[in-house]
């Protein structure tokens, strides 16, 4: 019971940090982008443009969301370690596990707020330009959010292992490799020197981030069945559990020098 309240305290403070350190400013860019596209496309008012607007909105959510996930996932964890702000906290009854999971919860909440505000922005733009608020978009937004949670888990894992600079590079690497998984599979055609087991290992370990991409399907108006969404949820949950578990183990065993 005390453990949970400490975890919540860490999560709340993490969210407060993202607000105070102006991480959520990305929302301003999103708002500007949406307003501009709304204004431009609104003048044309052809039926086709509804798809364009949705495409832009979802792609922007995905892009800004991923950027923020990498930024806060690496930044807010590395900073605690590198600037040593967690020293006085870890000497208190707070355990390392509570700290790590509290941090994760706070970051996930930040992402949720981010996605929620962007979703509202997208719907507002659609309504303002005289289009309907298509609830089907949520079937693409929810998997985007799952993907972001997984990105944060990777970023936290790398932050416990190495410096913030290298952790950012590694996280970006995982995201790219996971989105363009054929690149990894075809790596040997470009770099024949790479042993097979490295390629096989990488493609087996790195999650396929395209499993979270329903953008095209949704904007074409294809419904996404519930069991597909359930499957994606399980896929994300399994990966997040493993990656977060590794991060936790590494965070628990390390020295704070």
């Amino acid at each position, binding site marked *: 019971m005390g453990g949970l309240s400490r975890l919540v305290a860490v999560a709340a403070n993490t969210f407060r940090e993202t607000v105070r350190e102006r991480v959520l400013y990305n929302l301003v860019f999103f708002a500007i982008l949406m307003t501009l596209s709304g204004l431009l496309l609104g003048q044309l008012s052809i039926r086709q443009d509804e798809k364009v607007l949705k495409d832009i909105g979802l792609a922007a959510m995905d892009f800004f969301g991923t950027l923020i996930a990498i930024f806060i996932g690496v930044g807010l964890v590395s900073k605690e370690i590198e600037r040593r702000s967690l020293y006085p906290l870890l000497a208190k*009854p707070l355990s390392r596990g509570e700290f790590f999971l509290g941090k994760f919860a706070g970051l996930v909440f930040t992402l949720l707020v981010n996605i929620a505000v962007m979703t509202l922005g997208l719907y507002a733009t659609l309504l303002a330009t005289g289009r309907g608020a298509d609830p089907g978009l949520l079937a693409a937004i929810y998997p985007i959010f799952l993907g972001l949670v997984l990105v944060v888990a990777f970023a936290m894992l790398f932050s416990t292992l190495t410096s913030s600079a290298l952790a950012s590079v590694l996280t970006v690497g995982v995201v790219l490799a996971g989105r363009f998984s054929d690149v990894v599979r075809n790596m040997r055609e470009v770099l024949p020197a790479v042993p097979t087991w490295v390629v096989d290992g990488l493609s087996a370990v790195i999650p396929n981030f395209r499993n979270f991409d329903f953008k095209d399907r949704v904007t074409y108006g294809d419904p996404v069945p519930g069991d597909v969404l359930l499957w994606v949820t399980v896929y994300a949950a399994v990966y997040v559990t493993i990656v977060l578990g590794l991060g936790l183990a590494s965070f628990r065993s390390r020295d704070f020098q």
Partner: protein
Amino acid sequence: MAEPSPLLTRGLSKSYRVGHIRQSLHPALIDLDLEVRRGEILGYVGPNGSGKTTTLKLLTGLLKPDGGEAWVFGQPLESRAWRHRMGYLPEHPYLYDYLTPSEYLDYAGRLFSLPAPVRRKRARELLALVGLERSTRVPMRRFSKGMVQRVGLAQALINDPELLLLDEPMSGLDPLGRRLVRHLILDQRKAGKTVLFSTHILSDAETLCDRVAVLRAGRLVQVGALGEMLRPDVAHMEVLVEGPGSGLPEIEGEMRREAVGDRTRLEVDEKALARVIVAVDAAGGRVLSVQPVRQSLEEHFFQEMGGDDGGGNSWEG
């Protein structure tokens, strides 16, 4: 049943890995056996790099020991129950820039599961205690180093701990701040608390501590009351003389002579005091003051550690 001592270590050791490719082990703390007694102020002194911070990080769980054991209030280090009874100030603390001191202390209080009214009350009291009552609503981004240090002290006291571990509590503080910390530490003892603080400023240790533990290159070289450590038999007298200048002849038992303006400062053996007064009088001078000089902790350590150290440790650092 006797109460277990607040802190006990047996053979506590830690080495750091240094170098990237050819790694080697650098011992930072070697076989530390230390007992802190209930209700005492223990000074943990040693030159830069002697292992003070390493010890405190081991005790608070930030580092894992390579060997040895430690008990806090009789409970092993790995058990976490004792953490409710302990307060820790890290060396050069960094607290969150974006929080105000009140918010930080509230956060710290939540980690001890203190109820909200208690947190508010303690935060207010502690910030007043460290002299920050007028900056409670200012983000710490705008704080000076000494102000952050003061918040660091306040957060170490949020749970009214029975054992305080302070890593260089006076560092970065102005004279007023240092006095404040001295009073704070003494008040803690008065309230029955136990304090261990590290410092390499010996006069701080000298004015505060019941006992000091002396560390050198990772090894504990001495523990004890200052009175025992500073041999009383080397006591001598400082005599301040006005007048005779160079007319004053060399006196038997004189240890040192120094001109201070038109005055002369003499350091003499206690037994030579009568001869000095007679000699000064004969030379037409006047004795202004006579003061016993006890060997200071600083002198003691210069004697003990000076010169042949070899470990790269120096008081100047």
